[in-house]
């Protein structure tokens, strides 16, 4: 792992390396969208791509021929269109066949129902969509699958009343279990949970047996069917008992669906979840990452709950195995780190156990193929949280070591990370590192963030430091001042706050830059923004003026204090008279 290199997909031109998280996301998305644009062109203008130069031919770079070959009204034609996933054509052909009186076999009708239920009556490949929405799907790396995946998101298409699937279902002369099952699955997928339940009752009335996938779908629909927690659990149990009665063996997805439902069952879920896990064990079903994710969510949602040993047991299991994806939610599991952070935020349990868990989690992630479960976004979030945890729990040299290794290669620090780092430096009294942190901030593009600037300035100006450090601080302050003053076209003017202004003045005073401290900061700006400089600032300024021997400046200060009506003006005046040798005119 090269600590200075960005991710491989960005290694093209050093100028184009992303510097912060937003840029890295933008760049990777733009790379993907470029690919998609190329695919779009090949798909829509295949006539320009018909020369095959490569030998052997490379099929994935050539346009696909997806036009149905079989013409005419026949079941074969219908089957072909179903196979090519052309929803509208299949439905039209089916209707034509029915009208012409040709019987369509049950199997074909069932596969048509499958197609309709899966796509929820929408088309399988939305036209012209790929170019305009490169950023919609957060997981941009799944771009070639994106067309299909869009159809499978439950928030996408909804189940319309009496759509083609229902209509065809009704006019079917005979239906078997498969018909019912596929209808149930489709309804659950597209949000018509109540209808799915009715369909299931219909299936039971016809004395059919549902298959395991249907039951899984029904279990996932439970939170939409009932409101109260106990009722939800009871309904889920009903489904499970039916499964046992119909001799349908549950699989991993069944239990994952059950746990997912239990996530939304509050306290009931907590009391029951462990029973579910034991049941899985008894049936020799190995839990997947999604299982652990649901489990941790159920148990660790609040910081009030005392952490039990579950999380370390989970980590044991996770660390031992190399996982293969088996459930759609497996990618979410590294939000284990969420829970770790919750643990440490609960200030009751700030013991080293937490950081040890984090290290163990890191090791688990490096094992085998486990790293693949985190895409770029989540990886960034994961390392960001890890770094926050480090700042809170570890010694400063460990923190700095990780910071050097990780930032810009493994992850891009978020503003919160920089804040945590500053606080850790503060706690460890290493404030001389601050100028380099400021450099990093500039590179990351955080140099206009009000909160970070405040923190930085207040840390720098709190105490008096040895001279070189003070000079470095003053240089930072100057750059910050420049940030406040320049406006580029797109950015609005960054407002000075009173404290920021005071800090900057302080820093300048301490470094002996009287001119700047006075003219640029105090006079104009304080009055402009209607703020009052603190006494500390005034005193420091006097000190500075004394050092650099500018009695004029001191007098200006006194005048300013008087004009603002500060209570300390008298004191300042006395002090000025005492410490400076003033001519009569000046007095």
């Amino acid at each position, binding site marked *: 792992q090269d600590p200075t290199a960005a*991710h*491989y997909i960005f290694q093209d031109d050093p100028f184009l390396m992303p510097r912060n998280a937003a840029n890295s996301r933008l760049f*990777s998305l733009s790379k993907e969208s470029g690919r998609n644009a190329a695919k779009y062109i090949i798909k829509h203008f295949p006539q320009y791509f018909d020369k095959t130069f490569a*030998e*052997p031919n490379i099929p*994935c770079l050539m346009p696909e021929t997806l036009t149905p070959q079989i013409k005419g009204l026949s079941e074969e034609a219908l089957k072909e269109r179903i196979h090519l*996933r052309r929803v509208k054509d299949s439905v039209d052909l089916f209707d034509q066949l029915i009208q012409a009186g040709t019987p369509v076999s049950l199997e074909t009708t069932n*596969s048509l129902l*499958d197609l309709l239920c*899966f796509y929820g009556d929408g088309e399988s490949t939305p036209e012209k969509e790929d170019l305009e929405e490169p950023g919609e799907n*957060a997981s941009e*790396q*799944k771009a070639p699958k994106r067309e299909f995946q869009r159809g499978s998101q439950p928030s996408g298409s909804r189940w319309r009343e009496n759509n083609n699937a229902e209509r065809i279902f009704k006019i079917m002369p005979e239906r078997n279990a498969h018909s019912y099952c*596929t209808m149930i*699955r489709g309804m659950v997928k597209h949000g018509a949970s109540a209808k799915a339940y009715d369909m299931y009752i219909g299936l039971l009335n016809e004395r059919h047996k549902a298959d395991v*996938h249907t039951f899984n779908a029904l279990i996932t629909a439970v939170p939409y069917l009932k409101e*109260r*927690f106990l009722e939800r659990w009871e309904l889920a*149990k009903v489904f499970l008992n039916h499964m*046992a009665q119909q*001799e349908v*063996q549950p699989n991993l997805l069944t239990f994952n669906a059950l746990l997912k439902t239990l996530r*939304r069952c*509050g*306290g009931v879920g907590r009391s029951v979840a*462990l*029973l579910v*896990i*034991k*049941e899985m*064990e*008894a049936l020799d079903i190995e839990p997947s990452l999604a299982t652990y994710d649901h489990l941790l969510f159920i*148990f660790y949602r609040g*910081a*009030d709950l*005392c952490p*039990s*040993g*579950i999380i370390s*047991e989970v980590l044991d299991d996770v660390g031992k195995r190399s996982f*293969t*994806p*088996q459930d*759609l939610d*497996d*990618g979410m599991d590294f939000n284990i780190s969420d829970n770790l952070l*919750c643990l440490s*935020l609960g200030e009751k349990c700030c013991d080293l156990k937490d950081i040890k868990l984090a290290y163990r989690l890191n090791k688990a992630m490096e094992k085998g193929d486990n790293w*693949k*479960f985190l*895409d770029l976004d989540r990886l960034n979030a994961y390392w960001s949280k890890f770094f926050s945890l480090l700042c809170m729990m570890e010694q400063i040299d460990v923190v700095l070591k990780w910071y050097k290794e990780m930032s810009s290669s493994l992850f891009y620090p978020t503003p919160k990370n920089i804040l945590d780092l500053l606080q850790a430096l503060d706690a460890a009294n290493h404030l001389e590192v601050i100028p380099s942190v400021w450099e990093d901030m500039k590179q990351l593009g955080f140099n206009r963030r009000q*909160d970070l600037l405040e923190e930085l300035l*207040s840390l720098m100006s709190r*105490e008096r430091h040895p001279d070189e450090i003070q000079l470095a601080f003053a240089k930072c302050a100057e750059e910050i001042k420049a940030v406040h003053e320049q406006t580029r076209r797109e950015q609005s003017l960054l407002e000075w706050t*009173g*404290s920021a202004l005071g800090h900057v003045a302080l820093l300048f005073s301490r470094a002996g830059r009287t001119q700047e401290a006075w003219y640029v900061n105090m006079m104009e700006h304080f009055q402009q923004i209607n703020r*009052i400089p*603190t*006494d*500390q600032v005034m005193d420091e300024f006097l000190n500075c003026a004394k050092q650099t021997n500018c009695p004029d400046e001191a007098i200006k200060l006194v005048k300013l204090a008087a004009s603002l009506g500060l209570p300390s003006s008298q004191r300042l005046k006395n002090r000025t008279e005492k410490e400076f040798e003033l001519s009569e005119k000046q007095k």
Partner: protein
Amino acid sequence: STSSVLSTEKDESTASKDSTTEVASKSQESTAETPKQKLLDIIGNMKVEVSYRKKLQQLKTREIKKQATNKLEGPDGKGSMLQKTTEDTQRGKPLSPELVEAASAVASFLPLNKKQTESELIAQLRRHEETTDKQKKGGTINIRNVISEMAVKRQSPAQRGVRISNRISLELDEDGQRIKPERLSPQSSDSRSLKVGRRLNIFTKASTETENALKTVSSPTIWDLEFAKEIAAITAQPPRNGFEEMIQWTKEGILWEFPIDNEAGMEDNAEFHEHIFLEKHLEDFPKQGPIRHFMELVICGLSKNPYLSVKQKIEHIEWFQKYFEEKKELLQEI
């Protein structure tokens, strides 16, 4: 932490302080909404969230700053606090007027600088109010959890809504009953382990024979195919280095497979000897004469030709055969 500021005046102002805290608690009861409502308002509105976070942060930093300033610069600390309270008035919720009056009454009692004491007291009361409010809503920790959670993650609004409603049920069950933070006794915390415990007892493990019998082979439906695709997509990450990229390209067919197979893409299932030893196709030709000579040259050329498949070579030879057949008739005619 805050007591350090007041320690200098504790002796003098304890009596009057009590009265102000009494006034404070009375006013708070009158303005309380239900905790759930407050929480919902806060969480549902993202804009409010930002200012709250800032407020929390500033609370935290203010406390740190105050400690620092108090240690180092005694009299000046009060001045900076004065500045901070002016910031407060711009941002925080206003204290009730009774409190303010009470604070000024206290200040007038004390021989020290009136303005400063008054502002200190007001700041202290404000802090009391904030922390009481927060703890009423279920603890500073929870809100910080919730808000930091929301600030870091970027999700679609729908997902965020689900997440928020999940978080709300943190505090109060969706039923409306307040969950009791569980005070686990050491016994029950031990029993919350993955390894020991009862099970649901709904299913029985099927024996392997019934399992095999139950597995009816049916062609994968569209559900199965799509599911398989999505599962594969979970771990489809971009390549981390050049080797992984080359692996991916080889799988897609963009790169040649190593060791190089120079028959890749050609569907010729013939062995090499069938390409080279083509004499057996010459049986139909005369054994001597110019035609034979010619055909042997043809065969020699064909055997060295790597571009044609065996079938094509045989076709070549047959074409010649047909050609000479026709020509033979012509020749014999002559």
